[in-house]
């Protein structure tokens, strides 16, 4: 009925169309012209309505197609994408889980995952008014939808207390528990999910897999103080070992989880009030192997840049592309400042500062990686890179990696004698505050005044040791809080009773490994990706910005193969952790019976050469070596599964080394 109704009146005013119908002998070329004319006429008649109508029509069309496609997608058999991929790229290799199941591997040892910084989810348990309705919703991880909806509220809830490093009053944000805590970081962005799925193939399930999720913002000892996380981990490992017929656990920590587990191993054997009271042979009794993935044993230079100016390579690159955008005060965003304020309340970021000082990371004129030549990112294949390195030794200038922060490119390259340092440590902090608007953002820079900032810039070059001093000077409150929980030195005498304090437990250079000769320690990490190692800084000229220092992004080298890119000196690594930090302990300091490893625990190094995904269909690749993507690396998964199913280091092939880690370790002069 309504249709008829509608049709009838159209007959009358539709003289132009009827004309067209009656005279169809006309050239078809005319029609578009005519129709556009009538279109014009019509829009003259009631433009507003028809515009809305056609908008509606358009939206309707889009919706309908969308639903239709959605329907098709849902009706599509689940194996279809795989089929397409196989058609294009040829048959995929079996995932390691399927392959090893065919070989007859079975779940044997219980497996414990320890997620790293950032990858674990955090959820809200109690919040301020502005976070209404977010109870038990993820603030960190998941879709991060709240960051956009209420950014300031989000920053407030994610920050910890400035003074204590614990919860601010009235806010409780806690780690998500269970495997869901870190299987996917964001939808579709796996962290542990691939490993979990493959382990499930050979018979693992919830009862013999355990994700030791912890609040990664806290210092390690505070996770025990506030949440009893270490106690829970101990109890869970004990439970899993006893319910799995006394088979020892295989621990798989990733990234900062590596340090966290070092801390745990000391904690669990320490006597009760401070430690877990597990007795001196707890680790020997319950742990078969520790398989560290991408472990920043000796810290990462990234952490220095992060704490110093709230930026890293990515931010620096973004700034180079769109200068001024991040720093301006438009919208009163002050993004970086807010990020800085937030991250500075997190004690855990300080656990990642470079450890071992100049002995490990190099001084003004030397570094263990000396002679390393960077192959450009452009080169895909690794062989050509090696060749280029050999040929290009004369071409490229040696890089002074030891200078973690240098002000200006010239200084970064100058000979040590040419640099005249003016000590900044004694410099008086001026009271003159350059910018009052920054007061609402707590970054400690406004306490420093212009004199302090000048003094820092004039010191020119900072090595690893001095970078720590620099941070002490720049952010005294934060470092005071942090140094109560972490230490960055090298122990002279490990039997000194002071090393029984928790703050030394996460530094491998200031603790001994437990007395567990049958235990194995693996260091698994990716290589072949340029990784941040040292920075070129400049003073920030922009008057709006509250952070007075910036990575000097225009510091470039013409040479393609240069290690200097956008103000950052790169070295071999997994994009986040340099090889030196991930590999040195297992390559040298813990190898054989040393003072750090008194019981002679066997150590193995397994490096995985990065090869980027061949095409988009592969997603993040199955041979990646990047810090997080390596968790989807088939070779790494296979190694872990073999150990979990009862293999040992010699079963999976001892060391597997692609980088110059052994050569570099040789250069480090450390009492063992």
């Amino acid at each position: 009925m309504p249709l008829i109704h509608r049709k009838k009146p159209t007959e009358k005013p539709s003289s132009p169309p009827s004309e067209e119908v009656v005279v169809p002998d006309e050239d078809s070329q005319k029609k578009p012209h005519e129709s556009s004319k009538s279109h014009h006429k019509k829009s003259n008649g009631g433009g507003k309505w028809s515009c809305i109508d056609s908008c509606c029509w358009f939206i309707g069309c889009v919706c309908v197609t969308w639903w239709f496609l959605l329907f098709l997608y849902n009706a599509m058999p689940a194996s279809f994408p795989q089929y397409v991929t196989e058609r294009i790229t040829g048959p995929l290799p079996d995932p390691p889980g399927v392959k090893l199941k065919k070989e007859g591997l079975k779940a044997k040892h219980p497996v414990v995952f320890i997620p790293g910084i950032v990858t674990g989810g955090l959820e809200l348990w109690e919040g301020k008014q502005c976070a209404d309705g977010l109870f038990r919703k993820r603030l960190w991880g998941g879709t991060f939808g709240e960051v956009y909806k209420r950014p300031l509220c989000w920053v407030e809830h994610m920050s910890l207390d400035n003074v204590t490093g614990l919860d601010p009053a009235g806010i409780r944000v806690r780690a998500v528990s269970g495997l869901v805590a870190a299987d996917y970081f964001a939808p579709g962005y796996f962290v542990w999910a691939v490993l979990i799925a493959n382990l499930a193939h050979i018979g693992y399930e919830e009862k013999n897999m355990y994700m030791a999720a912890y609040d990664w913002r806290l210092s390690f000892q505070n996770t025990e103080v506030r949440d009893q996380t270490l106690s829970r981990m101990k109890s869970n490992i004990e439970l899993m070992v006893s319910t799995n017929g006394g088979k020892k656990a295989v621990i798989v920590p990733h990234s900062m989880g590596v340090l966290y587990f070092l801390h745990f191993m000391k904690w669990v054997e320490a006597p009760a009030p401070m430690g877990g009271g597990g007795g001196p042979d707890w680790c020997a009794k319950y742990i078969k192997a520790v398989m560290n993935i991408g472990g920043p044993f000796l810290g990462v230079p990234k952490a220095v840049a992060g704490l110093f100016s709230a930026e890293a390579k990515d931010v620096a690159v973004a700034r180079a592309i769109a200068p001024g955008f991040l720093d301006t005060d438009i919208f009163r965003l002050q993004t970086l400042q807010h990020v800085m304020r937030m991250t500075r309340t997190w004690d855990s970021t300080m656990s990642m500062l470079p450890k071992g000082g100049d002995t490990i990371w190099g001084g003004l004129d030397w570094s263990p990686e000396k002679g390393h030549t960077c192959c450009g990112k452009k080169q895909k294949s690794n062989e050509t890179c090696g060749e280029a390195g050999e040929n290009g030794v004369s071409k490229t200038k040696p890089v002074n990696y030891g200078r973690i922060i240098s002000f200006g490119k010239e200084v970064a390259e100058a000979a040590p004698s040419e640099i005249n340092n003016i000590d900044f440590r004694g410099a008086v902090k001026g009271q003159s505050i350059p910018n009052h608007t920054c007061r609402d953002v707590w970054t400690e820079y406004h306490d420093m005044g212009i004199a302090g900032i000048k003094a820092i810039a004039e010191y020119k070059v900072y090595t690893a040791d001095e970078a720590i001093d620099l941070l002490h000077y720049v952010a005294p409150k934060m470092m005071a809080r942090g140094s109560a929980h972490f230490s960055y030195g090298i122990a002279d005498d490990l039997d000194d009773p002071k090393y029984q304090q928790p703050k030394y437990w996460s530094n491998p250079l200031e603790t001994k490994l437990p007395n567990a000769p049958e235990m194995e320690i693996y260091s698994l990490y990716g290589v072949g990706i340029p990784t941040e190692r040292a920075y070129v800084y400049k003073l920030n000229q922009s008057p709006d910005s509250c952070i007075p220092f910036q990575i000097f992004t225009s510091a470039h080298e013409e040479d393609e193969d240069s290690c200097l890119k956008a103000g950052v000196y790169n070295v071999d690594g997994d994009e986040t952790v340099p090889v030196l930090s991930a590999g040195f302990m297992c390559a040298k300091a813990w190898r054989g019976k040393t003072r750090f490893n008194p019981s002679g625990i066997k150590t193995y190094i397994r490096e995985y050469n990065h090869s980027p995904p061949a095409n988009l269909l592969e997603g993040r690749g199955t041979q990646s070596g990047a810090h997080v993507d390596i968790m989807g690396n088939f070779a790494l998964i296979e190694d872990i599964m073999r150990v979990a199913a009862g293999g040992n280091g010699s079963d999976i092939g001892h060391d597997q080394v692609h980088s110059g880690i052994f050569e570099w370790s040789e250069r480090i002069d450390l009492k063992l």
Partner: protein
Amino acid sequence: MSPLLRFRKLSSFSEDTINPKPKQSATVEKPKRRRSGRCSCVDSCCWLIGYLCTAWWLLLFLYHSVPVPAMLQAPESPGTRLSRDGVKAFHPVILVPGIVTGGLELWEGRPCAEGLFRKRLWGASFSEILRRPLCWLEHLSLDSETGLDPPGIRVRAVPGLVAADYFAPCYFAWAVLIENLAKIGYEGKNLHMASYDWRLSFHNTEVRDQSLSRLKSKIELMYATNGFKKVVVVPHSMGAIYFLHFLKWVETPLPDGGGGGGPGWCAKHIKSVVNIGPAFLGVPKAVSNLLSAEGKDIAYARSLAPGLLDSELLKLQTLEHLMRMSHSWDSIVSLLPKGGEAIWGDLDSHAEEGLNCIYSKRKSSQLSLSNLHKQNYSLKPVSRVKEPAKYGRIVSFGKRASELPSSQLSTLNVKELSRVDGNSNDSTSCGEFWSEYNEMSRESIVKVAENTAYTATTVLDLLRFIAPKMMRRAEAHFSHGIADDLDDPKYGHYKYWSNPLETKLPDAPEMEMYCLYGVGIPTERSYIYKLATSSGKCKSSIPFRIDGSVDGDDVCLKGGTRFADGDESVPVISAGFMCAKGWRGKSRFNPSGMDTFLREYKHKPPGSLLESRGTESGAHVDIMGNVGLIEDVLRIAAGASGQEIGGDRIYSDVMRMSERISIKL
């Protein structure tokens, strides 16, 4: 009209420009106009959809941006109020979910379940049922021989609070309680959900998943990390008997298949057990579920649209499939009525005698309750004359059998009846699936059903007769009797641990047992069955049906089901008897004389749609959102004792009913 009109013009033009074909004017004109008409229909559909979508988005946007007006704002939650009163988290809390509410996820499956790894099969949106129903059934069923995983399939309980906070999106189970607990300071370290695979028998959860060991270790850990404060356990529904099983298991020494916690374990670690809607003595619903895979709801549906569920259309056989699945779950057997005729009544008498159920239709429970009590006391003679409903006959075949004096019933003893297997030829066309009915001859089915009524004791015999394999498997794990002598060494066997009438409570005089449940909703108590008439060429594989056409004069009998007071699933007698009498004081079931408290919550349906499931509901699952109950749980968790929250609170007749039940104490 005008926009429509103009719009059509536009569309007819665009159509023309797209198809600049027509050459012959006269002949083409007609089809062309038709085409353009059809096209405009498509267009206007699009337009309409676009219009609706836009309006929807606009409303959605408005909904999100406009603050909730004060009148729509929810009243202050008990957590906020108590937190203001200074109630703080004190004892660690363990939640034990019941049957059905816990989520299950896939860990290993057949090819048909590809892509569902670690996705929920049970709980959440249940979308897989619609997409691949048979695959879903296959994965959720257990092995019919062992009651454990079928080969190649591993379905496991979801761990953590997410396991049962919401059963389906927006359908809360524990979420409200958790939120309120969080308001007074609870969080992951002192709040734990002890999820387990609720399809398995309780002992098998330990055998397969070590769920009991994990629970023990968790309780010990929480006790230690929270300053050695005892834990408060909050089980719901079947969780209550699961936790009874745990209490017994944990103190049994390791070599006898226990947890090896030693005799003082419960006294040391547990402050109180706050049972919500506990099914201590089972539920009659389980009988009808096992007998014919139906409950009240399905019987109603069948009477509304007869033939739909039973027809062979689409070869669905929904009920048969469901039955096959639920017969593979041992846990349903744990819910069969326990205590036999002594508790549930024999052919002639029962504990609820004299109870009238006029209350169901009334909106205001205040009114109905007063009426109810008036009826009970003043109209008792009348109801006696009007021949009382015989609740004791849990299953009777035909309305006549449900009302006849016991002397006139056929004196068939199912135990002695020999099961005649064979001649299942007539059902081969439907025999795609396993059901023990297929192996039964028509004669024995008829014989079982002829003019008979079954009490709680004999109905077990009936089930054993009908489904011998299932009952043999399940009765190795569960027992439904009453112990004569609790010190008999045979009661050390785990199959008795979940039956409160065959175990002693632990020796923990300071522990408290609470029974919290809703009342005021008609609850299934007994059924009137009929033989299913075989429809179509293929005999339906389930020969018994609830007779949905039987309606009584009052609401006590409706759709073939007799109702008693309860929380919609669990009758008062099952939820309340143990706390009201069986464990009250020092009895042989409660040798250390721990305190028991009864807290009933009168059902009050939500006043308006806005309240959704209501804050004063007494229904089995909705009661978890009842503010009164939440407040009680919070106070207990914060350290209050039973006396401090007001001791017993009783609305129903549970005390009188318990009086009438005579068992040795």
